């Protein structure tokens, strides 16, 4: 039997019709996650054509992108500030009701960022094909699922047929050796990987993250890694499921139970790249050599270790434009640079362990004067858990704002914005121009690095806090 990669196994199990020279494969989708921003036009199309949602049991909706995180707005004590966002939220409610789609809506205790609630509910499982009208759908690949972002036309196709037309992507192994040093996190690892292969290095590929540094990560860390696959150009990134995966899933409400669990487990255990299977491309990263990372430019590939200096690229106009936007000079060190905003949140880094990591730094300390800190949990479940464990109190005692769950300042659609010219150390995934607000200057980093910047008011190596 031919040795196969993890991706090939999952792909082949979902081919309704294999691809030919003339037509792409018809690929079956096991789980379709829906949110308010990329679904309205798809539901409209179904209405125009008189179509139904084919599999309501495989469709799950929530609201996160343009949804408020201000508790007053969520509770309805004040109107939702962004009127168009309020209309979009309403539209999702109407569409889900009309089509019968399960919606974890504004008041649901299971609501949250779509890529955080899928896993925590156990809807995300190894070997599934998972899509969502959002490029960070790659997050679910941490469970050995084939998960990728789609556009709204494709959202309509999946709603109506539970299938997509897809050409088979190539495979790319990201091998890791060694282990992450203390104070160096999954976020630093994925930023280093993107720095190495570049923001289009993964275009056309599905990544598989492998090796000792990946195997040592918690599920939260694995999700952080897979989440940013798209920032390297790859629509999907996968990690083979193992004991860590099964232990996580066993605690979740929507996984099979009893004998069905045993049967599922037996299937999941087959989902590993066979010895001798070939990837179209491979790179290797030595985790031992990594440091906390931070971005300095206007895409996630413009990234450096905290101790390094901004590179010099004379004559590169695009590079100069990015540095001008960021207000940085070639050769400059970022350590010690004053910042104005810290955002701890997003589908990249708003899980419980991310909040714990930030709380370690905040505990017994205060946010520096003139710094605004927004801590936005990834889901209402995480919010409750963080409150029960005292994390929320650590944040608010330090002077940070503690919010309801949502995408918030990662994408700035709900009014949570960074002002023009301000530096924001953000645990999110994109430092594109204007991403966090017009003229906002985003520096991507781990929750620990973000928290360290918050208490010092300057970019700081978070390991200083671990040693004390």
């Amino acid at each position, binding site marked *: 039997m031919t040795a196969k990669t993890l991706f090939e196994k999952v792909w082949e199990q979902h081919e309704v019709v294999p691809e030919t020279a003339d037509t792409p494969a018809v690929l079956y989708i096991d789980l379709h996650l829906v949110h308010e921003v990329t679904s309205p036009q798809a539901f409209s199309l179904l209405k125009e054509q008189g179509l139904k949602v084919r599999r309501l049991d495989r469709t799950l909706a929530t609201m996160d992108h343009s949804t408020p995180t201000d508790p007053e707005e969520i509770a309805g004590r004040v109107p939702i500030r962004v009127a168009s966002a309020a209309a979009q939220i309403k539209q999702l409610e109407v569409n889900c009701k009309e089509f019968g789609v399960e919606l974890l809506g504004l008041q649901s205790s299971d609501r949250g960022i779509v890529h955080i609630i899928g896993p925590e509910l156990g809807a995300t499982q190894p070997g599934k094909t998972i899509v969502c009208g959002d490029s960070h759908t790659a997050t679910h690949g941490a469970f050995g699922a084939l998960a990728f972002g789609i556009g709204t036309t494709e959202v309509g196709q999946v709603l109506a047929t539970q299938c997509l037309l897809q050409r088979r992507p190539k495979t790319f192994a990201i091998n890791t050796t060694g282990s992450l040093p203390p104070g160096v996190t999954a976020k630093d690892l994925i930023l280093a990987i993107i720095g190495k292969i570049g923001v289009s290095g993964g275009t056309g590929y599905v990544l598989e993250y492998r090796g000792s540094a990946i195997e040592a990560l918690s599920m939260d860390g694995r999700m952080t890694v897979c989440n940013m696959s798209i920032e390297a150009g790859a629509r999907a990134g996968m990690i083979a499921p193992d004991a860590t995966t099964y232990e996580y899933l066993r605690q979740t409400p929507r996984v099979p139970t009893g004998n069905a669990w045993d049967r599922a487990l037996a299937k999941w255990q087959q989902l590993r790249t066979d010895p001798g299977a070939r990837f179209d491309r491979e790179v290797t990263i030595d985790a031992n050599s990594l440091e906390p990372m931070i971005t300095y430019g206007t895409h996630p590939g413009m990234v450096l270790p905290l101790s390094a200096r901004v590179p010099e690229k004379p004559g590169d106009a695009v590079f100069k434009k990015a540095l001008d936007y960021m207000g940085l000079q070639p050769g400059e060190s970022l350590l010690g640079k004053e910042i104005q905003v810290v955002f701890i949140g997003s589908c990249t880094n708003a899980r419980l362990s991310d909040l714990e990591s930030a709380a370690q730094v905040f505990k017994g300390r205060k946010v520096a004067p003139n710094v605004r800190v927004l801590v936005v949990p990834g889901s209402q479940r995480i919010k409750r858990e963080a409150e029960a464990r005292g994390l929320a109190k650590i944040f608010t005692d330090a002077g940070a704002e503690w919010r309801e769950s949502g995408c918030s300042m990662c994408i700035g659609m709900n009014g949570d914005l960074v002002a023009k010219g301000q530096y924001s150390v953000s645990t999110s995934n994109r430092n594109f*121009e204007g991403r966090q607000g017009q003229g906002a200057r985003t520096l991507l980093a781990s929750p620990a690095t973000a928290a360290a910047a918050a208490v010092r008011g300057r970019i700081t190596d978070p390991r200083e806090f671990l040693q004390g």
Partner: protein
Amino acid sequence: MDPISIIESKTVVLPSTDIDTDQIIPARFLTTTTKEGLGKNAFADWRYDAQGNAKSEFILNQPAAKGCAILVAGRNFGCGSSREHAPWSLLDFGFRAVISSEIADIFRNNSLKNGLLPIVLDEATHGWLLANPGVQLRIDLTTNTLTLPDGKAVQFPIEAFARYCLLNGVDELGFLLKQNNAITTFENSHA
């Protein structure tokens, strides 16, 4: 979708590399529930100042860009988010084709589904087009060729089924709906 076979136009050039979908259409314009009228928001943060006035120095605001249906952009165009609002806004602005040496996967897929032709060229031809803005090009989807002003024709790759759909104005959803029996069979055997 209307069938596409020939696109003839002058080019407008945005030479930056890695132009992401947040630049093509900033997220604050995504709180819409329709596809229409997004062209005014295309490249909004590059086109308008803080007061909302058009910046005259930006190429898309200049007379030369008027009526141009072909956008030539730096390498790795359309990276970032899956927002289909990006091709919707470019189409509404008037573009019918985007040329680069590399185009991001999701943006390329979204473009093909809306009749915006994503064309990936070799670096030499792409570099020449970047260096020579405003040249007249002819794109012929029936032969997969792009003809340069000197008459030289360059082949470009395009996925066969997407090409068939574009040439014939066929909707992919119709094709998928016709797979109903195969899908049902699959569902029954994978229950």
